[in-house]
């Protein structure tokens, strides 16, 4: 009898301890999501009635497919570029050469300064009068005119990569530093050259870490808002498309909410598939 009483008390205390987190979740996430969902099903500017009109009109537009495709292209492009950058970077940083700590700090800088300021700097650097174009005109043959990088899709992928690669770089570096040196030595002793060791031993061993980091980069890039807002030009991924609906008066909250729901559902679906693929052992 006494035992049951103390057990009930234990459960009660656990629930009490959990309640602030759960309350935050429901009040600041679940409830707003429900408000967004309800708003997206209401006729514009009204509090009653139900309609699917906003979903139908958006999805029927030919632009809708373009917008969704663009969002995916940008985020997957950013993930791929980040992986390509992170592996050599991790391998280089693993050696703990001079100024190791400085480079480690450099690696997280893009995540620490406000993203908008980073984007502003990138716009200045890659602009038609920026250093990159000056460099190309001066030193690369057959380039006489400034190349437009800002406001193009490759440019956007570059900006995304600059901003979101630290997630992958950090997990990759952590995995590389956690590798047992004996494994690589064994491969070396077995007669593998440096490239073979990298290709057949190191890369497979750090793949899980790279994939784990890529989930974070993907999520950040998919939901990216500030960068495409100021550096996107005519290329508008979903987040900017949503903001455009409420940016001017009269604000179209219902249309924006419908797009937001589509975006959230797409991301959840994609992440679920991604996680499924991740769980499968990589051979």
């Amino acid at each position, binding site marked *: 009898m006494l035992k049951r009483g103390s057990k009930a008390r234990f459960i009660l205390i656990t629930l009490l301890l959990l309640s*602030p987190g759960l309350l935050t*979740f429901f009040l600041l996430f679940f409830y707003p999501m429900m408000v967004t969902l309800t708003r997206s099903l209401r006729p514009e500017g009204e509090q009653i009635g139900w309609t699917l009109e906003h979903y139908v009109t958006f999805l029927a537009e030919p632009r809708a497919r373009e917008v969704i495709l663009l969002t995916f292209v940008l985020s997957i492009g950013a993930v791929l570029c980040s992986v390509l950058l992170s592996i050599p970077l991790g391998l*280089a940083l693993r050696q703990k050469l001079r100024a190791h700590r*400085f480079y480690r700090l450099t690696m997280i800088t893009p995540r620490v300064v*406000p993203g908008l300021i980073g984007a*502003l700097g990138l716009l200045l650097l890659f602009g038609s009068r920026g250093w990159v174009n*000056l460099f190309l005109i001066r030193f690369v043959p057959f380039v006489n005119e400034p190349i437009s990088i800002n406001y193009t899709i490759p440019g956007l992928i570059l900006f995304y990569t600059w901003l979101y690669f630290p997630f992958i770089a950090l997990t990759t570096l952590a995995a590389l530093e956690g590798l047992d040196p004996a494994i690589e030595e064994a491969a070396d002793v077995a007669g593998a050259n440096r490239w073979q060791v990298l290709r057949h031993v190191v890369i497979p061993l750090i793949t899980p870490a790279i994939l784990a980091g890529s989930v974070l980069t993907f999520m950040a890039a998919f*939901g990216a808002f*500030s960068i495409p807002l100021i550096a996107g030009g005519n290329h508008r991924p979903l987040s900017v498309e949503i903001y455009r609906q409420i940016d001017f008066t009269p604000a179209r909250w219902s249309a924006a909410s419908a797009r937001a729901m589509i*975006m959230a559902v797409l991301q959840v679906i994609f992440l679920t598939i991604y996680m499924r693929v991740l769980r499968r052992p990589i051979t």
Partner: protein
Amino acid sequence: MTLARKYLNAILRSRKLLIQTLLLCFALMIFTPFLMIVLRSVGRGWFGRLWLPPELTLDWYRWAVEVTNIVEITKNTLVIALLAVLMSTVIAIPTGWALGRRNIPGRELLMSILLLPRMIPPIAFALGVAQIFYRTDLINTHIGVALAHVSICAPFAILILSATFEALDERLLEASGVCGANPIRTFIHVVFPLILPGVLASMIFTFTTSYNEFTLTLMTYGKDTVTLPVRTYLAIGEGYWEVTSAMSILLIIPSIIVLFMIQRQVAPEKLVGGFKGV
């Protein structure tokens, strides 16, 4: 042909140099954008194909200070960030304790539910938050903007703190009890020093998240709660790039000072959430 091979071999042999060059290029890639902003903010008449501005001036800074109330904006940003840190920590300590120290059925599931706000694009629930805040008059208040930030700060604080509390060794607490310390003494002399780094890490993480948060602020700010990122956005929209650059430099200074102060306390990797389990 042989000469080319000779050079190639020489380059390959000096691998250390090669790696150093690679790292230097990487650092250039990260830092030149900021250098460009600095140069733009002090240059005058920088047109055409010039590498450096022909004339230096501090006029843009004077403009920036005149046009924008830098002090007010910095104060807003810091107040909101501190409120967000405070609220997230108060929320995360009990919840993290329960998740880390108690046997809860379905703990993993609960954790992923609590982390859901980080999975959904913030703009999706920012729309809902804005509508709720308009109804409850929380728009354009410091506490309102901070509350909006808590929605994404708290999940990560919970994650970091539950990992910290889970790592606490039960035997240490028992040993302290055996040695005759009462629970309060145990907490002050054993538990507190052990969890302090984790709590600090979580606070720093929440601080930077809130300091840099743009989406949720843009949806809930008003003329009295303009923060650093929002002001930069507005300035970019106004189109005077020189003034915008000067403004960004002024606005970024506090964040650099804060970073410099904290990077000695905590491993900087923690700032990105590069801890295990994520």
